[in-house]
């Protein structure tokens, strides 16, 4: 990034803003009021009018319920001939629509009022009395009200009464001297008093009048809504385009608020990608009087000293196939300008771990095929959260296919070959003998259900590799500004390797499964064969004389801890246990892998036993359909847990080791902000 300073005369301000907007190259650093004794600029004259029209437009869009347009990366093209014409059109439209909207609201109020009155009068209309009959007695008290249930035993209060009842409503006429007791009785029986409506006409007549009136207004309301709908259909496109255009105009017009100004000049400060600087300079200096200069970028040490100095924004540049993983990195935090972008490691580790957990060629191929198909369909869709995630899934599917084929040798929960431990006919079901009737030349390196300890060893090896890379990146990050911190990272790496070797040595003693060599032994005698073996037996912890804890491993752990304490402080001693927990945490790769395999295996065996083996053809077809459904369920489940667990390992275990993610994303003026999840 180059730090650019653009200076020009104030009368060239509008043209400069236009040029900057079109360039889409400058990440503006906002000027603060009074900083270096310079005021901020005032919005261009166009701003007031444009914002006013924009407010009107938003209110119209709200009334018409026109959807907010989706922001795209490059901004939306305005209508063909904007300008005064468009603004006048919006004003006229606003007048028309606000009138319609006002009458709509008024009628809605009227209708609500009518409905309330209808509700009031309805029970009276069911009784054979006119409204006059409820009023004007000297010796009688009238109770009218709602009842929650039928009220019995009015005669227990007094025999001198008369009552009329319809379900949920009761009218009682009672002599004045008994009124008090009657009121108490009614109150206890769940009676709520209702006032008698005004009017002289028979309630039935009032009701029908009200209903007729209500109908008339409803009809009018329908007409207005129809009008609004027509308006929406006619103007939706115009409104969306006009809004995009106006938003651009407002953004441009308000840009001077981010500039510094003097009486006759304006000054813009910002960042331009280094290689685009010359082009930007040439373009901007075409405007009379505008001058672009590059501020000397500060060196690392100077930067460390002046903390107040703003960090340059970060523009991530990754090859296209792994670019979608930037989204996952940014979700955690944008890398700062002085940090190594971890996208490439994430782009390998995330789908790979997903692949280990799903570990099934069938599901893998399904994801690759479905993902590529969907990607083709989404060709014109902007690169939003889902599209980026889809690419991550395609990579995940790719790795799941690789692991499912060459390591676990299974597809859709059915192994390529008969598992050695299988006893029942259903458990023996496999691709080679029962489905394809040919001998697939690939045998499993690891059978999930029979070799769980081996699977865990594999997961822990992934942990050592993954965390090791994390510490190395951390070392490379730190060496540039602090050798001390870099040494701390080396200390951690040393602890990690020592820890891993101890775990492998211990696991190498695990008993043999089906006569095969356990993975612990295989790794100890294979990739780790160079490691010095001399060591200390520790029988109580399982380290016999045959496989003692190597001195070198103990040395690496102790030496690493000493280095960590020396460089990072005594408190970080606790973190050693944290690191141990982190390493064991990777066992989830095995845990999820085994769990999913166990579920799909169980489902397959149940269906095979019940519907397929020794059954008639229709039953076999039904069984196949059911197996498909079960597989689909596990396919979804394994995708969800695979994604969440894999992202967690990368965020919590991996990133925390070295990654700060405190940067700001490069957002050049003129590029619409992308909406992120």
């Amino acid at each position, binding site marked *: 990034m180059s730090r650019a300073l653009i200076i020009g005369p104030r009368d060239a301000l509008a043209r400069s803003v236009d040029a900057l907007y079109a360039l889409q190259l400058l990440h503006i650093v906002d000027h603060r009021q009074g900083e270096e004794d310079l005021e901020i600029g005032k919005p261009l004259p166009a701003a007031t009018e444009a914002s006013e029209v924009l407010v009107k437009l938003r209110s119209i869009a709200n009334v018409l319920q026109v959807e907010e347009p989706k922001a795209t990366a490059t901004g939306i093209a305005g209508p063909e001939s904007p300008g005064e014409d468009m603004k006048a059109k919006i004003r006229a439209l606003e007048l028309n629509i606000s009138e319609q909207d006002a009458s709509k609201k008024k009628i809605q109020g009227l209708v609500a009022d009518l409905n309330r009155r209808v509700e009031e009068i309805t029970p009276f209309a069911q009784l054979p009395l006119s409204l006059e009959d409820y009023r004007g007695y000297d010796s009688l008290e009238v109770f009218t009200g709602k009842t929650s249930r039928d009220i019995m035993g009015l005669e227990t209060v007094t025999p001198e009464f008369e009552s009329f009842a319809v379900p949920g409503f009761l009218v009682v006429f009672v002599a004045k001297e008994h009124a008090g007791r009657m009121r108490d009785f009614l109150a206890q029986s769940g009676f709520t008093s209702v006032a008698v409506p005004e009017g002289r006409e028979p309630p039935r007549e009032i009701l029908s009048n009200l209903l007729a009136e209500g109908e008339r207004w409803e009809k009018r309301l329908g007409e207005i809504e129809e009008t609004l709908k027509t308006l929406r259909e006619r103007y939706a496109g115009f409104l969306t385009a006009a809004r995009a255009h106006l938003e651009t105009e407002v953004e441009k017009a308000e840009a001077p608020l981010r500039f510094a100004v003097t009486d006759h000049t304006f000054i813009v400060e910002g960042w331009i990608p280094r290689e685009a600087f010359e082009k930007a300079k040439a373009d901007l200096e075409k405007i009379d009087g505008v001058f672009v200069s590059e501020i000397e970028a500060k060196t690392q040490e100077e930067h460390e000293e002046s903390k107040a100095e703003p960090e340059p924004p970060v523009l991530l540049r990754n090859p296209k196939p792994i670019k979608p993983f930037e989204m996952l990195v940014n*979700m*955690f935090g944008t890398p700062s300008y002085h940090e190594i972008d971890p996208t490439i490691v994430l782009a390998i580790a995330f789908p790979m771990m997903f692949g280990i957990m799903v570990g099934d060629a069938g599901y893998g191929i399904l994801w690759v095929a479905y993902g590529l198909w969907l990607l083709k369909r989404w060709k014109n869709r902007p690169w939003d959260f889902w599209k980026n995630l889809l690419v991550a899934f395609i990579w995940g599917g790719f790795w799941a296919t690789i692991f499912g084929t060459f390591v676990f040798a299974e597809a859709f929960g059915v192994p390529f070959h008969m598992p050695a431990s299988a006893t029942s006919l259903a458990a023996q079901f496999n691709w080679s003998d029962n489905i394809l009737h040919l001998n697939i030349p690939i045998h499993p390196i690891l059978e999930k259900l029979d070799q*769980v*300890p081996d699977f*865990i060893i594999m997961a822990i090896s992934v942990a050592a590799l993954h965390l090791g890379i994390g510490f190395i990146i951390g070392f490379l990050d730190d060496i540039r500004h602090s050798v001390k911190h870099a040494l701390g990272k080396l200390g951690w790496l040393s602890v990690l390797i020592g820890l891993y070797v101890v775990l492998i040595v211990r696991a190498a003693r*695990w*008993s043999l499964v089906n006569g095969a060599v356990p993975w612990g032994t295989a790794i100890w005698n294979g990739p780790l064969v160079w490691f010095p073996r001399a060591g200390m037996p520790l029988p109580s912890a*399982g380290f016999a004389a045959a496989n003692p804890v190597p001195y070198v491993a103990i040395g690496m752990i102790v030496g690493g801890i000493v280095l960590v304490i020396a460089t990072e402080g005594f408190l970080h001693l606790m973190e050693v246990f944290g690191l141990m*927990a982190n390493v*064991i*945490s990777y*066992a*989830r790769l095995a*845990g999820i892998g085994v769990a999913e395999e166990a579920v799909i295996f169980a489902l397959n065996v149940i269906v095979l036993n019940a519907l397929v083996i020794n059954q008639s053809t229709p039953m076999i077809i039904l069984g196949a359909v059911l197996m498909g459904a079960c597989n689909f369920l596990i396919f979804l489940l394994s995708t969800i847990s695979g994604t*969440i*667990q894999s*992202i*967690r390992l990368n*965020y*919590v275990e991996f990133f925390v080791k070295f990654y700060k993610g405190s940067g700001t994303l490069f957002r050049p003026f003129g590029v619409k902000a992308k909406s*992120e*999840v």
Partner: protein
Amino acid sequence: MAVTGDLAQAAIAIGAALTILGTGLATAWAEKVIGAASVGALAEKPELFGRVLPLVVIPETIIIFGLVIAFLMLGTLP
């Protein structure tokens, strides 16, 4: 180190089951608390999703430990 005797073997198997039970419950309880708080936070600020998701699944390490220990215990059975 294989363990002999029916009772001893049964005790190991039950011990492994209890390990899974206890760590499973612990994970569920921890995630319940974090999950409820996270949903509250997300209702206010949906853009926190990326930060919240790893927090919710952090306690899952507990049951992973349980799983590993259970397998180590089962490994001592003949």
